[in-house]
């Protein structure tokens, strides 16, 4: 697998849990992806609009000031963000949430805890346009 082009990627991570946010950014940094972080739903959309370049968006489903699905709907309306994969990241029960995420239009689902060993491959597949709907094991 090639991770070279990861160096050019910029990811927006929307996550309110500090440790969750840190872990995701560490994992992204390990593969060379630069991250922009937001902790609130209300800021996420503005931030995404203002960013000159964004290649992937990680969205926590349970934000303190809004549901991840609402944020997704707003992001989907932005013409600039067309084709940018949006990945749901959550500790919620994958059994029910994956189906919801698929129906809502997410491009991927990563259940918490994230699997650091599989993470690079998951990102690669997401960027290749494959859907990734996975949990830890």
């Amino acid at each position, binding site marked *: 697998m090639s991770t070279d082009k990861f160096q050019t990627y910029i990811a927006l991570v929307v996550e309110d849990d500090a440790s969750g946010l840190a872990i995701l950014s560490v*994992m992204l940094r390990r593969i060379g992806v630069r991250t922009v972080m937001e902790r609130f739903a209300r800021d996420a959309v503005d931030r995404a609009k203002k960013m000159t370049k964004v290649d992937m968006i990680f969205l926590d489903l349970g934000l303190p000031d809004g549901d991840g699905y609402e944020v997704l709907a707003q992001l989907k309306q932005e013409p600039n963000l067309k084709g940018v994969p949006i990945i749901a990241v959550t*500790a919620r*029960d994958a059994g029910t949430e994956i189906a919801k995420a698929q129906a809502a239009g997410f491009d991927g689902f990563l259940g918490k*805890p994230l699997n650091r060993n599989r993470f690079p491959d998951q990102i690669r597949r997401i960027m290749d346009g494959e859907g990734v709907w996975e949990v830890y094991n």
Partner: protein
Amino acid sequence: MLIVANLRDFLLRLSFNRVWQDLLLGLLGVTLAFLLLNIGLSWQWLDQPFAGFLHLNRVVTESNLTSRSTTEAPIGQVKLAEGDVILSVNDQVVTSSAQLNDYLRQQVIGQPMTYRLRNPAGQAVETKLAVARFTSQDFMELVIIPAFIASLALMVAAVAVYNRVDLIQTKLFVLGMLALVYALASMPEFTLAQLFPLNFIGMMAGKIALPSLLLHFLLVFPHPRKIVKNWPFLLPLIYLPVLPGLVFLPALLKQPETMHPVNNLIGGYTLIYTVAGAGLLVEATLRADRSTTRKQVAVLLGGLIFPTFFALVLHFIMENQQVNLTVIAEILQKYGLIGLPIAATIAVLRYQMFDLKRSNRLHVLFTGAAAGALIAYFLLVVLINPFTVRLNYLRLSDVRIIAGTVMLFFVLRPLYSLIRQRLERRLYGSVEDFRIGLRLFQQGLLKAKSRHDLEALVSWDMPDDFRLRSAELTPRSRPSSPYSLQLPLYVNNVSLGTLFLGAKINGKDFTAREKLILLELQQQLALAVWSLELDEAIRTTEELTRLKSKFLTHVTHELRTPLNGIINYIGFVVDGDTGPLNPEQTDHLNQALQAAEKLLHLINNILDLSKIEAGQMILQLQPVNLTELIAETVPNVAEVLGGKPVQMLTNLAPGLPPVPADRLRLRQIILSLLSNAAKFTDVGAVCLKAYPENGQVIIQVSDTGRGISPELLPAIFQQFTGEGLTDRDEHSGAGLSLPITKSLVELHGGHIQVESQAGQGTTFTVTLPVEHKT
């Protein structure tokens, strides 16, 4: 057909057996009341000089004749005037009051005697006078009204003692008829034509027949239990007919004779409602429990508001009055009385829930008679006397008439029994067949959804179906029950309550055959209660399971979040992100990592299991490419094997059809089986085969591990009881994985089998349908 059925019902409920007894009871009560009344009135005149005669129904005393101008109606052609003095009676000279009194006592009713009078002008006048003691009008005032009021009192007293509604209906009816018979029988100049004076008919119909019939029809005829059960708010409407009467009530009380017969009718009708209602309200208030009182209050309010409104309208139409606050206040005050009968009706309906055994009839008799006499006496003296008559001595002829009437009823008794038997045989023969009742009741039994339904069914439907006075299902038995039959409900020695049954509506005892049917019913009811209680327990459990699952869903979310931190931060350190580690550090951190992963696995398993238990494991089915899924899953096994000399072999048939499955769950199934095999295999191979067969896909995982002993094999898929907890617990997720795997396979419409020989390895075979049946 409906009319016929209702009529039959009406007749059935008008228990003939009881009518006879009540008739006698009522008769004796009224007799006693009337005697007491006469004694009381005579007492009033005791020791007073008496002189006078009966003029029509008026007592004209000596002093009347001398000091007071009379404006009485003419007797024959003679008009008594002030100063008239009686000179002789039947040519016997009157010299004193006592003498006149003696003459008068001799006078036979209806036989004229010749009176000589001297008027104030000194002229002597001779005339024949017949003492017409009772006209229909007098009779109304002196007999019917007191008797009727006495009957009412008797009835109320009887209800208070019996605590049963039927007495009200039968007594009203019977006593009304009794009063009529007595009135007619006592009239000296009785002719057929006298049956039809308008006032008389009006009063009789209004005060006795109409109210009793209406009461009966309202309370019994159209299955009032059902009416009240289904539309309790309609109850106040039955009082609408009272309203016109209320308009005339005050006038009626003051001057009954001047009222138009129709007004009399309506007024009398109102009167009975009010009087009966007041008595019953007191009784009901004393006995009502809290919920009943609440209902009573609700209906009472309804009963005050509705009729008052209509009464106002009616009043203004009829009296042509201006609307102003004073008038409204007066009317409100006046018509507030309507609430009494409404509460009474509620009380009456409540009685249908009770069925006190008949006891101490003598007590009722005396209570009723005494109460009747007192009330009648009071009312007569207070209300009627001032306007009409002073009746001043006990008449032997009254006693004769009363005695004669009593005798007549004794004579009529055999005839009555005969008619009663005939009618009962006709009516009860088919209708009061307990088997029919049982069938009807069973239909209701099937529809009951809860114990509450069942209790309602017993109180409302059972009395109708079985022609009983009442029935009740209560959780407990009662040592002193008013019911005639107590049937305890038991299943497996567990007490489920008691079925109380009132007496049969025809007053007879239960026959042996009926008792057998009731025993059958007792068993069925016990089973119904039992099954409903089980249902309820199951529902509660299901609800608890659902809540548990919901709770766990939430909790596992909260648990996974910190695990994300634990696993990944340890992982970053192990991976050397923070600098090189020595081998011991690496080992320790890997142990911690494995423990955390085990914990995660356990959390996931517990959640899965609770969802399966609660029936909330919902699969998101989609066509899954098995080859891809397996390729994705197999690398995970290497982690579990952890460097053991075990080969991981896959053998996939080419062209595997897509399987309709929940991708995540199918992955979980395969991973669970592979991990299981990897854990228990120390040397050799773990082999995964997948191939299509007969429209199904077979996924087989076999290992060369230690195997499972035959006695443990059947238990392997059971939660917590599988081998996992015995010698495998250090490896497995507390023995939950295999039960979950089995459930998941079955949710996919497939099945799982296991074969094993101790020491030689284990093979799990999962069969999944390619065409998913929905």
